[in-house]
């Protein structure tokens, strides 16, 4: 009984004693699993923004002014749970910081309306300094896209192909001004020993 207890204690130590946590480089390539990861998100956002900002008609449009853009959610058509809002955020951050476009945030419409209502009707805000209703700028372009994947397995090999497509539409005319896609292929081979 004594030896069994010692054995249990030793195995508990084995499982808990060797764990360690350390900070890593957020820009380093991450291949922990075959699933859509941080590197895929970063390279997708980088490719899309580089492509959009260097596309000649877009270069022409943004040469003298900063058009207003609205970013729609990216549709996840893959079988995997992927936070597409995070991809959208990375793309809109890079585009906004380039100084070429301005954005309207449709996720905050209710909060903005509440604040404008408070400024106009609460009696708490100086009328001369209150922001006025009906003066927002309408978006000229809509950025949207989708992410799809094809997963194949053969024996111990798993092949995942991701295709991220993004489009920019001129809202008034309905014309697609820009479109591009990023493809990513990842292959996982399961070894006989280990993972």
């Amino acid at each position: 009984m004594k030896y069994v207890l010692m054995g249990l204690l030793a195995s508990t130590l084995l499982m808990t004693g060797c764990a360690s946590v350390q900070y890593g480089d957020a820009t380093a390539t991450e291949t922990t699993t075959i699933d859509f990861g941080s590197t895929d998100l970063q390279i997708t956002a980088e490719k899309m923004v580089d492509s959009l900002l260097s596309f000649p008609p877009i270069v022409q449009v943004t040469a003298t002014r900063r058009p207003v853009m609205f970013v729609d959610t990216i549709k996840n058509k893959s079988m995997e749970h992927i936070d597409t809002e995070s991809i959208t955020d990375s793309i809109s951050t890079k585009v906004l910081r380039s100084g070429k476009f301005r954005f309207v945030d449709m996720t905050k419409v209710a909060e903005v309306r509440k604040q404008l209502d408070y400024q106009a009707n609460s009696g708490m805000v100086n009328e001369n300094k209150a922001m006025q209703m009906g003066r927002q700028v309408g978006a000229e372009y809509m950025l949207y896209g989708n992410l799809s994947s094809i997963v194949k397995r053969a024996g111990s090999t798993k092949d995942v192909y991701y295709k991220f497509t993004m489009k920019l539409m001129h809202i008034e005319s309905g014309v697609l001004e820009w479109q591009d896609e990023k493809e990513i292929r990842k292959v996982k081979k399961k070894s006989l020993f280990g993972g």
Partner: protein
Amino acid sequence: MNIIGKGLKLGVFVFAAILVTACQSLSTIDSDVSKENASQDAKETTPVSVSKSDHFVVYDTSLNSKLFVNRTVMRPAGDLSQGMVEIQNRDFTSLKMEYRFAWYDVDDVEIEPDSRAWQPLVMPANGIKTLKTTAPRPTAKHFKVFVRED
């Protein structure tokens, strides 16, 4: 009974030895990793060599002898700049590597250093690939592409 007891005692000792050995080897791995990270950091601050172009920085000596820059181009796209580097693997085996673009302003300060990630790249034997980048802002004056082994 005495033999069973001795056997059990021996088993516990062996297990404890494995436990200690396992932890030692893990800590060895950890220290190796930290050494590797330290050397990688050193590589990042002092590249092993700068290849034929000022735009192209290779961290690994072994890669430097296999990878060649065919041409580099920097051209305007409106008030932004666009960079392009055509590289060639002159080895008979494929190369697994990573690259990362960086853009610098007029004072040679990197613009938004954390915004560009290392990207995986597989270069087939004798293959040619073109890496492209667009400046994040109009203030970007020149770029570099860093390459290291995966």
